[in-house]
């Protein structure tokens, strides 16, 4: 994508006067990390960039702190927020809009057709110990990595984030400005989910027991998720208490079942939950299972239509009921 055009657009948008800030990415001083940038001034805009290193979902910041940004139903003449959104981010936005969690009038969306982003742990492992400020671009099927005076070409497959390999929504659906040409879209496929479904019940139980046994209950998955924005989260409520605070197999299982269910039909597939997890839990398996079933059972796909009603507040007379006595 053309970073200069991006910055020019950003300058134009910020100069419109009623835009509170533009949420984008900036490169951290060392290594391969990027940070969210809440740009307000021309100086800030100069630091904006978009590259294959931009692996954080910015949409999360729209709903992260209560009262901070954009409750729904706000008056249109108030401040706007501009935001950079990749395909998955735009899908998350679309879902939040469908749920009336954000006012569309207060958003200016800079959509970025996204060919996928890099898995930070992979590139940090590949270039262990390198602290120069990295510059990464995508050319052909490879990433060109510039570190100081050195240049490396690394095949895309080696560094591309796992969930980007499965992405079927690379092009933003909700946007005001589109930065870049649409990228090729692949059909959804669920080999990872099918592999777990193929296990016996005992194998599944053992598989997940080992996984949930690692969980630290740090809430990073919940906090990083753009679709987790309830004022009072059921996972931490104490009156009534649904999930105990103790960290053990049973309570961790309850936690993850509760979260997966609450995201069913809403998860936008951004993969942030897996990216942020300090103990590498394969949380997207649960969310993708739900996504697959939602499509198969109810013809519902999250984040594709701002007019779509939430899947559990509608029904079809012909919904399956062969399990009902």
């Amino acid at each position, binding site marked *: 994508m053309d970073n200069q055009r991006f910055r020019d657009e950003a300058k134009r948008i910020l100069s419109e006067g009623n835009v509170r800030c533009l949420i984008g990415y900036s490169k951290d001083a060392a290594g391969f990390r*990027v940070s969210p940038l809440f740009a307000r001034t021309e100086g800030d805009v100069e630091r904006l960039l978009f590259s294959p290193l931009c692996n954080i979902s910015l949409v999360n910041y729209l709903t992260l702190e209560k009262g901070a940004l954009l409750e729904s139903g706000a008056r249109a003449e108030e401040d706007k927020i501009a935001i950079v959104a990749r395909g998955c981010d735009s899908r998350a936005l679309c879902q939040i809009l469908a749920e009336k969690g954000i006012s569309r009038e207060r958003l200016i969306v800079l959509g970025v057709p996204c060919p996928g982003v890099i898995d930070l742990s992979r590139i940090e492992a590949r270039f262990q110990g390198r602290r120069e400020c990295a510059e990464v671009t995508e050319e052909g099927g490879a990433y060109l990595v510039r570190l100081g005076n050195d240049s490396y070409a690394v095949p895309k497959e080696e560094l591309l984030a796992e969930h980007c390999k499965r992405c079927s929504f690379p092009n933003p659906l909700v946007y005001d400005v589109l930065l870049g040409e649409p990228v090729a879209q692949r059909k959804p496929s669920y080999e990872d989910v099918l592999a777990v479904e193929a296990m016996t019940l005992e194998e599944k139980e053992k598989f997940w027991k080992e996984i949930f046994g690692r969980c630290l*209950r740090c809430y990073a998955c919940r906090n990083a998720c753009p679709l987790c924005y309830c004022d009072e989260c059921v996972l931490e409520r104490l009156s009534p208490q649904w999930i105990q605070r103790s960290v053990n197999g049973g309570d961790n299982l309850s936690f993850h079942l509760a979260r997966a269910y609450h995201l069913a039909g809403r998860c936008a597939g951004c993969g942030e939950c897996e990216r942020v997890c300090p103990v590498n839990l394969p949380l997207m398996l649960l969310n993708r299972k739900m996504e697959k079933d939602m499509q198969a059972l109810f013809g519902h796909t999250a984040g594709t239509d701002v007019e779509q009603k939430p899947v559990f507040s509608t029904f079809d007379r012909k919904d399956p009921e062969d399990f009902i006595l």
Partner: protein
Amino acid sequence: MENYGLKKDSLKEFLKTLQDVELFAPVRRGDVTAFEHVSDPEGVALDLEHQPLPAKKLLLPQTEILFAFDKKGLPKEPDFRGTKKKRFVFGVRPCDARGFGIIDSVYEKDCPDPYYVAKRSNTVLAGLQCSHPFPNCFCTSLGGSPSSSEGLDLLFFDCGGSYLIEVYTEKGQQVVKEAQSLLSSPSAEQITEKEKVVREAAERIQRSLSLDGVLRNMEILFEDPIWGDMARKCISCGICTYTCPTCYCFDIQDEKIQGKAKRVRIWDSCMFGEYTLHASGHNPRPTRAERLRNRMYHKFKHNIDLHGIAGCVGCGRCITLCPANEDLIENLQSIESAR
């Protein structure tokens, strides 16, 4: 101080000679290395490539039963079941061992915590010198080093084909006595190799900072907007606090299953929104700005004022694992240069 040589091949043998102790060591769990109870030393994974999660949970469990009760009433005694057994923790990094010292200053001094104190006195800490510090390590800036023996009963130095073991305490000496047949006096080559490994480890530390300006500036920066800027990308999760070797905050909950209840002490995080939520609904730290400010002040001002030492050992896990790439060293540097 005593020192011994141990052939690398004999490490598992050595661990097997430990009588009557529960062995804890780093093990691989999926992609992550963490300290767990190991029933067979074959399971020990001295992973040099992945920084293990801290051993803090062995002395401060994430979920600790204070006492159990049911409809019949309260017990006469607290529940000390987790504190009885002798433990041997192998492979602790020097930074984590120093971390226990910081936790000691809270859990052993004015108000000794019986659960912690009992476990601490029953635990032997055997460290592994950091021959290859991790990319975000900065222990040397906080009074530590990859070869520090502070807080350790023994320290293993990797000298190629063998370990050189230094023993600092009576507790450590007791353990070593049982494995006498596997140990030898260290050779001159081993000692030279150890000195080389210590030197090289210190040179491999990539990051550093100075805390002088930080402490001075924190006196005047409390109301400064710097904290809002610093915290804007924080997502308010508990990763930094839970993976920190010196964080020790806890919450207490009563939990019941089918008529049997327990009062448990669980890890809490000052980064969580509800950390200072009052019963009235008022929250003196309502946003991430106040909470991040509090964390910085606790570790780099209050701890120094109260205990003479920063509440940080420079392990760098918070930097490596933060989902929003909050960089503690950069944050401290911006505090230092704010005035």
